[in-house]
Structure formats: C-alpha cells, structure tokens
C-alpha cells in the first residue's frame, strides 16, 4: 500500500496500468479447484512468473568467464611430469625438459605455470623472441592469478633485459609490480 501511495496514486498513467492489469487478471477464467484461489493471488503469481521470465531473458547470451580461472594444480600426472622436467633442467638437458613440458601442456593447456617453465627453457637457450611470446601466452591465461602474473611479467622483464631491450624490460617490471 505504501508503494501505491507513493508512486501510483500521484501518477495517473501508472495507476491506470495497475488497475488494468488487475482487471485483466480478475477477468481470466480459471479452472475450479478444491481450494479456490483468490484473484489477487493469481495476479501475484502472474507477476512473479513474469519477473521470472524476464530474469531468464536477461541471462547473459554468452556466459562470462569467471574472474579467476582455476587450474587443476592437484593433477598428479602434471606434478609427476613437472618433476621430471625439473630433473632434466637440473641435468642441463633443456631439449628433454621441453619435450616433457610439451606433454604437460597437452594435459593442462590452460596452466600458466607450464608456459612459465617452457619460457624459461627458451630463455636458457637464448631464444628470446619465442621465450617472450610463450610467457605472454601464459599471461593471457593467468586471469585473476596475481602470483602467476607477477612471475610471468618478471620473467618477461628478464627476457627483455637479456635480449638488450632495457626500456621494454622496465615496462615489464612495472607491470609485474602491479600484482
């Protein structure tokens, strides 16, 4: 009633609308049921149904991706392979490490950590351009994961520094500092 007093009573157009809809609701013939419901209840139910329908209409057409994409870090296969890659790296066998990391990539292609490690092998091989782009791919997947983003941008800074591009390295370091 308060709503009516506040908004509808002083605005004839809205009041007409409300009356009209209530009138239409009242005119609708409903099947008799053992517990006959009142017209007001029907109108209320219709309003709720209408609202529900509207809510459905406004569901995003395209589901929006979550703010942070979680990566299954508990995958034992990934952990085991990352350990093998680490061993290969410690032995200085960068090619073997890359082969193993590409196996990890096939299992967990959205894990930014995989791209971080892959980028580091390319950096060790002094393939700066590829190292940077692999790290950037990691960045593109690390949405909402500040720790990963910081790590990746610091790596990009390192890559740029080693390749002699000091200004770009500083920019990357600045980006890293945001996380």
């Amino acid at each position: 009633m308060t709503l009516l007093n506040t908004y509808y009573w002083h605005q004839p157009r809205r009041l007409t609308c409300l009356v009209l809809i209530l009138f239409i609701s009242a005119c609708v013939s409903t099947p008799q049921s053992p517990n006959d419901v009142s017209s007001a209840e029907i109108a209320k139910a219709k309003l709720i149904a209408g609202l529900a329908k509207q809510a459905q209409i406004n569901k995003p057409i395209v589901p929006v991706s979550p703010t942070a994409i979680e990566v299954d870090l508990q995958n034992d296969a990934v952990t085991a392979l990352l350990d093998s890659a680490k061993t290969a790296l410690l032995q200085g066998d960068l090619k073997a490490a890359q082969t193993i990391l590409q196996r990890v990539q096939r299992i967990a292609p959205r894990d930014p950590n995989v791209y971080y490690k892959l980028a580091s092998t390319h950096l060790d091989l002094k393939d700066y351009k590829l190292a940077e782009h692999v790290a950037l791919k990691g960045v593109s997947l690390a949405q909402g994961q500040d720790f990963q983003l910081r790590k990746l941008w610091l790596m990009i800074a390192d890559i740029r520094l080693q390749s002699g591009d000091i200004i770009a390295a500083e920019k990357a370091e600045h980006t890293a500092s945001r996380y």
Partner: protein
Amino acid sequence: MKYLYAQFQSLKFATKLFLIFLLLLSLGLIYTDHHIRQQFEGKRWAVPAKVYARPLELYVGSPISSNDLKVELTRLGYQFTPEVVKPGQANISKTRTIIYTRGFKFTDSLETAQRLTIHYTGTQLTKITKGGGKDLSLIRLEPVLIGGIYPLNNEDRELIQLNEAPEAFIQALIAIEDRGFYEHNGISLRGISRAMLANLKAGRFIQGGSTLTQQLIKNFYLTSDRTLARKLLEIPMALLLESHYSKADILEAYLNEVYLGQEGARAIHGFGLAAQYYFAQPLSELKLPHLALLAGLVKGPSYYDPRRQPERAKKRRNLVLKVLFEQEAIDIFQYDSARLAPLDVVEQTSLSKGAYPAYLDLVRRQLRQDYPDEALNSEGLRIFTNLNPIAQNKAETALTKTISSLENTHGKSIKGLQGSMIVTDPQTGEVIAVIGGRQTRYRGFNRALDTQRPIGSLVKPAVYLTAIEQGYNLVTELDDSPFELDMPNGTTWQPENFDLKSRDYVQLHQALAHSYNLSTARLGMSLGLDNVIDTLKRLGVERPLAPYPSLLLGAQGLSPLEVARMYQTMASNGFQMPLRAIRRVTDSSGDELSRYPFELEQTIDNNSIHLLQYILQETTRAGTARSIYYSLPEDINVAGKTGTSDLQRDSWFAGFAGNRLAVVWLGQDNNMPMPITGSSGALRAWTNYMVNETLEPFIAATPEDIEYLWIDQQTGMLSDKGCFGAQQLPFLSGNSPTERSKCGIRKRNDALPTVDRWIERLFE
C-alpha cells in the same frame, strides 16, 4: 713325333685354357665374394620411414570413454580376451579396462610392458592401477603405426631380429622350407635330387630344391627368373655366403627379406611386416596357427593368399602343422587345436596403414621441407605425428554421415557432394585429424589441403577485428543499407544481405553474429582493404591477397587448412602458431633427428581478440550458428562462424571449443551451386563431430582492461541486468557507451521498484 708334338701342343693349349678358365673363375668368385659380403654387411634394405600416431596419454582426469579406448586398442591390434595375461591383450567393460601394454621406447623415456587396470566413469578416467594394485598417475600407450613412406620399388618391411621370432615359428619355417637348414653348407644335394625326381615325374618344373640360403641369395642378390644361369650362380653364392656368415645371420636376413604379399603397389616383405599385415599384431604375439600360416605363405603368397583363397591357405597351414606334428615339434593337442582354429586374418580395411591418406599427405609435405625423399624412403626413420585416431574416427563418421543425410534430403541437386575437414588442438596448434574427401580412405585429391574455395563469411571476423583495433566497440552502429560501388574495370559491385533485406543501422556485434553483408562491406571499405588484409595476415593467412572489395565478403579462395590456421589464432587468444602434424623424427634406433616444437607469436592483442571471441560465441548462442545448441549441452561453450560463398557453391563452418578446433568444408568438385548454406551444411557436420567428442568448454580469459556492461539491445545504451532486453557485453575500458537508457537510469537511481518497471515495460 709330329703327332706327339701336336698332342703336346693341344694339351698345352687345353691347360692354358683351363688355367685361364680357373683364373676367370677365381676372379669371378673373388668378385662375387666381395659383392656378397659388401651387400650383406652394408645397408641391406631400403627401409621405409614409419609414421606413428600420437601416443595415447592416460592419466586421472583424462577425457576418455570405453568406446574411445576400444578404438585405440583395436588400431593397435590388441586382442580382446577374457583373461589378460600377456602383452597385446585387453579386456574392456563399461567401467574398467584391463590392458597388458606392449611397451615402447620413446625418445624421452621407456614405457615398459605392464598389466594395468583403468577405471573410468562415463567419459573421464578415474584411476589407473598396476598389476599389484599400485596407483599410477600417468601412462602412455604405444603409438599406432599409421603408414610409411615407401621407396620406388614399393617394398615395405619392418625389420625384426632373430630373437623376436618365436621358437615355434622358426621350427615351422625350417620344417616346411628347408628341414636340413642346420646341416647343409648352403645347398642340399638331397633336396635337389628330390626336386629333380619330382620334376621328371611331372614332366615340368613343379618343385625346387632350394635351401633357405639359396632362397635368400635369389631374393637378395639375383632375380626371380627361373633360368639355368641363375641356378648355377645361386649355388656358389650360397656356398660363399654360408662360409662367411653364421646360420643365425642368414636366418635373420631371410626373415626380413622374403616376399609375403601384395597390397596394391605395396609389396609386403619380411615376417615382421607380414605379421602386422595379416594379423595386425607383432610376430612375437602370434599363436601357433598364425605362425604356421605365415611359414606356409612363403611358397606362394598370391596362391595361398588367406584373404582371397582362405580354403587353400588353411590347407597349406594345416600341412605345416602336420609336418611339425610329425617331427614331434608339437603334441597332438596343440596340433588338433591349431588345425581347427580359424585363419584369424584381419580385414584389410581394419588396418591402420593406409587408413589416413589425407593426414599422411600433410605429414609428407611437412617432412619434405626438411628431408630428401631418399632419406624418407630408405633410412628407416620413425616419424611421430599428432594424429589422434579416436578424433579422426569421430570426424570421419560425422562428415560421411552428414553428407549422406544431406544427399537424402536434397536429392540430385547435391549428388556427389564432397567435403573435407581439419581438426586441431586450439591451444597447441597440433593437427589431430585431416579428412581429404568423403571417401576417407581414398588417396586422391586432398581437399583439406589443395582446394582453394571462396570462404564466404568466414573472412568477416578479420573485418570486425580490424574495426575493433581501430577503436570501434561492440555497439558501434553500422550502416546496413544497400549501396553500389563502381569498379575500375567498369563493373558495379552491389552486395546484398543473405535474406535480401537491409536494415538502417545494426550494432557491430549483431552485424557479425548475424553475418550481415551490407554492413560488413561498408565497414570494410571504410576501414581500408589494406588494413583488413594486414589483419588476415596477422591471423595467419600467408598467401598474397588482392585488395578487391569482394574480399570483404569472402571471395578469396582458401584451403580448409589455411582457414584452420586463421581460426587457430582467434581461439588461442591472438597467438599465431604453425599447425603441426609432426612432433619429432628419429632414426631407426630411436635417436632424435629433429623436432617440431610448440612455437607461437602474439599478433593480436589480448583485448581486441577477447572482443572478437565474444562475438564468435554470440554467433553460436544467438546468431547464424545457434542450431549448435539443439545438440550440444548449454554448458559447453563454443565459438565459431558460418560461411557460404556466392550462389551457395561452398558451405563452411569454422569453430572451436576449449580443446578442439574444427573446420568443415562442403561443396561440389564441379563448383555447382547447392541448396545448402554454411548453417544447413557444414555446421551440421561440425556439430555431429563435436557432439561425439569429449569437449571442454571454451573459456575466453577476460583481460584486465575489459569490463562487462549491461547494454540495451535496441539502443546500445547502458542498461541494467533487470531491464528488458538488456545484454551483457564486453568493452575496452574507456571505450564503452556513456549514455544510459531510461531503464538503466532508473535502476541506477534505484527510483523504481521491480514490479513497477515490469508493469511499465509491459505497456511501453
């Protein structure tokens, strides 16, 4: 005296002649000996390169069903048995599979043969346990051998060592071909006498008395002509070979040399390959009746061909078994059981070799950039590819069924409809399936690589991406009214929308999702053709593109492979990457020669690609490809674009989920118009494929500079979630609409209660 002198002279002459003959004979023998040793000790055979599919990785959480596993194991020639007791056997049920793997030496590690139990629910693997019950996190099955690259003589063989041949097989071979093998010195006088007698009785040549050594000499050094000269040469050569090499060396060479069958132009040599060719299993895994059949085939692979002459082959096999029994090499129970066993020869069509001609074609092309033909067809290289036989199988089924269904619906108008398909991993750029035509086993024209057909609206994302990069947002209004353009050659270009209607203005995202031609053409012209071409290049199109306005609506011809590369860049967040069919190449002993690693380059920035990805998702949710969700579950997010060329000569669809990207082309080789569009043709094949794949949803990571806002669909103004007709759209921060719709303003001011808004909209 004179007579004696003459006699002496004659004798002297004869002696000289004899000495000369002896000298020549010695020289001949020395030469032959050198020749025998040189060839026997050098590279004996031109061994074709072997091409393998990707090894199946099994780990907890891996997407695989019992059906998928069965396809893989069938391709690997596993035997499905109630008891799994030796390598190459498996037992499959709906919830678990027991496998005894064969093991394989990969370049990075050795997978040993082991008995495993694999548990899964639906389409996901839940547990792997080893024989004793120990849990494993990851295993790799051996890769499926999918083909070879053959030398000019088309000889194919798989080299084996003597110790890989079962004892029973050696016994059977020697029993039927040369029972005195371990006693003679290369020739068997007893064998020759027996053959001569048989030939005299028959009055013609019916039997040979050749030993295994002589047969090896004939096949390895001489021709197969049945001439006296060859026979005479064969004997000393056999003696020389035996004098230099052990029986084991000779037998091993024989096992690899002997001719055992023909598949078209491809000649099957050696028992290693014959075991695969006839039984799809390694020789070491074959049972007694199989081994007896192979031993029996030596006498006449065509005459006793078990596929074409099964009765004859069975008689021959049983003869071998009988000889073995008579020699007490097998007992009565083994004999009875083996002679009653079926031939068990696999259907030729079920063999993996030759099963993927279009994929092998791609592999050959990529290899030839790095290897000469001779290295490929003679060095026994091992080529490990990215082919996924399970995905290939599903893609083939989807494409062929869709084509048949379309032909049933549309009748004669599309008789002879052709199609091709490429499937890749959108994250890694690995090509996992290629189909070159509706006859998927046919080695002819490869439409996936060699057709260059107008791509229609598949080009449009490049136009809209250019616009986004130039500062357009998703609700920028585009003019969709008709126009004409006078061309330099005097003609007039007059594009039309597919529905022949025009709209005054459409928002940018709607124009692409609904594939409007007029607004796209106008937009492209205002952006500049060179800029659109530059975008196409950054998306991965390498061929030169002419700056004609019709380019904007896809008049440019591309192959499905080129389209796949273009869409790969869109799927992988703007990173362009080469599409790779090959992982690595090793020599015959497994040492790595070259690798084709993951490479990429970011050519489109994160923000722009995200906005484009949104519209491609809208296309599948509410645009021209919305029929996808009649079949795919709502939670599997996919993105893509339909394409139809002028007069509906080509039907295209390119799209991707999280773990699969597929491009489908349908059309006729004679380039005739068809009654199908991208939506009603290629999209159906694409959906039929994706429905049967274990899909992961496409997740478009939202870059930090992107914000999602509720927009009024009608006006493109800011709105609110609760407002009628509001749609959530992404915008680059600072480039979003600033004006608010009425509903949006009220919501913002919290001025009206929900009920009121609803009532008002009802009557507005």
